[in-house]
């Protein structure tokens, strides 16, 4: 099967500092790829280059074999690529449901239909299902800004899945989430992966989370790929252990 996402030789420099220095990898349909690495190894920059938030200095990004390097995030999203952020990124002034409708509205209809058509763009049901799926049912009408941190994390993830993406990039989904919620989150991600065949790329510091969720793991250090393999292989890799211990 051809890869969903193919990243080749991405470089990104800020002034003189090379944050990402020639990273290549690909992700197959249905995979859950974990990307780990010490702080400052370029994980988030890599994400932002893939997603069009930053223009890579060099290198290409292909989606289903078609080049999408430097494409605007909104266009990329409408091609089925979705993401979550390391820091919380929900819309605090909107209700939970409105947040989800927002996440889906641009994927249906036209600008005109969005103006003259239904207020909810016909998405209320779908939003409520997604809310239920992420166990936020009791909070449908609450303002997103009023939710607890963990709830906002769930909402953030739910928004990423609202439009039924093929590929989801998750930036530290487990950060700051308590253990119970973490379990919930992992279970939900697995379910979506299984049911919808969605492909994931996950950046994460929480080793247990990565090792138990991902099918394959990529280790970055100093802007380069240090190692790659199944969780078990990576765990046994000496270079990886050194990189982490040496830090």
């Amino acid at each position, binding site marked *: 099967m051809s890869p969903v996402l193919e990243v080749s030789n991405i470089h990104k420099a800020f002034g003189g500092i090379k944050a990402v220095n020639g990273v290549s990898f690909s992700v197959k349909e249905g995979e859950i790829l974990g990307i780990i690495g010490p702080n400052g190894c370029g994980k988030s920059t890599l994400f932002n280059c893939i997603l069009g938030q930053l223009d890579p200095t060099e290198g290409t990004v292909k989606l289903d074999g078609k080049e999408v390097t430097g494409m605007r995030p909104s266009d990329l999203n409408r091609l089925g690529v979705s993401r979550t952020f390391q820091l919380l990124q929900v819309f605090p002034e*909107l209700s939970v449901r409105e947040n989800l409708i927002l996440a889906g509205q641009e994927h249906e209809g036209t600008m005109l239909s969005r103006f003259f058509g239904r207020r909810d763009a016909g998405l209320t049901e779908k939003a409520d299902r997604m809310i239920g799926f992420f166990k936020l049912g009791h909070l449908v009408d609450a303002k997103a800004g*009023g939710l607890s941190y963990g709830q906002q994390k769930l909402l953030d993830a739910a928004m990423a899945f609202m439009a039924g993406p093929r590929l989801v990039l998750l930036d530290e989904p487990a950060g700051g989430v308590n253990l119970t919620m973490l379990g919930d989150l992992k279970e939900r991600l697995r379910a979506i992966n299984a049911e919808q065949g969605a492909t994931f790329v996950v950046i994460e510091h929480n080793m247990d989370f990565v090792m138990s969720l991902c099918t394959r793991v990529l280790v970055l250090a100093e802007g380069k790929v240090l190692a790659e393999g199944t969780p078990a292989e990576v765990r046994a890799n000496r270079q990886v252990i050194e990189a982490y211990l040496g830090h």
Partner: protein
Amino acid sequence: MTAPATEGSLPQQRGRLARVPSLAAFADGILITLMLGAVILWFAPAGMGRYGTYVLSLWLVTSIAVMGLNLTLGYAGLKSLAQAAFMGLGAYATALLTTKVGLNWYTSFALSGLLTFAVGLVLGFPALRVKAHYLAFVTLAFSTLIWLILRNEQWLTGGVFGLSNIPRPSLFGLKLDGALAFHRFVVIVTLILAVALWWMIRSPWGRAFTALRENPIRAASLGIDTRMYTLLAFAIGSAYAGFAGALYAPLVEFIDPSPFSLSQSFFLLLMVVAGGAGYLLGPFIGALLGVVLPEWLRVVGSLYLIIFATIVMLLLIACPQGVSGLLERGWAKLTGKGKIGKTVAGKSVAPNTGGRS
């Protein structure tokens, strides 16, 4: 600099008042208020004399311009310092089209809106840069340039001497020259424009505008074409200024460059914020403060502007969300919904402001 969405997460500090039993019911309340307000304003001038009628009309016309700025600033978070300049474009376009070209007012009104919309589109491009200040800077320059052109190009605009004898429109053959008749006409036009905006804010567009204000990067990652919505918000907001200008010219029957200067743009900005940015009825309250309050304060004599400015300053110190925020706070206290944390409104991040500074 600081995106509110990324800030700390203590729930009692974040939720600015649970305004939301159901957003739909609230919005319909706004529509009812608008309709009711229109009915009241239809009859209000009785016994007020021409002056009172004129001030009410001026209030409504200003409200239209402030509504537009509220869309760009309050909903979409774009800082424009050229709203009065756009109003000037609309006013001069209407004045010239009706007096020199001989078009009727309705065509001129539409063309004024179209012109300001188009100019807004072009001018909006700097807003697409990451730093939101750029729009403010560019509109600052634009505002002064427009004023200079209005003043200097006497062959077209009448220069410092202005344009006089601007005709008032008629409706179905009915002349609207009288103060009351024209006031009622202004009420109708204002109502139509306010309802159109109400509709827009309720539609997915409104949601996208809000997303733009609160967190443009996240919005883009959800497929929201931030470029399109940014330009639309700014262009539509500018078109509202154009519409306001198209009414202002026949209302005053005379225009010169002074009401369209940079300081007037600042003043419109003041009205948006003082009325409550991001609230649909905020512009009416803001324009009430900016247009009617000074008239009202005339009784106190020469100090009236100082008193006016002091009221505005104290209001903003007490409640940075403006009068609408104050009313909302009071309403919440009354209904007991404001009890989620005592710090609520004081601590919260204002939706209209923190977003894209």
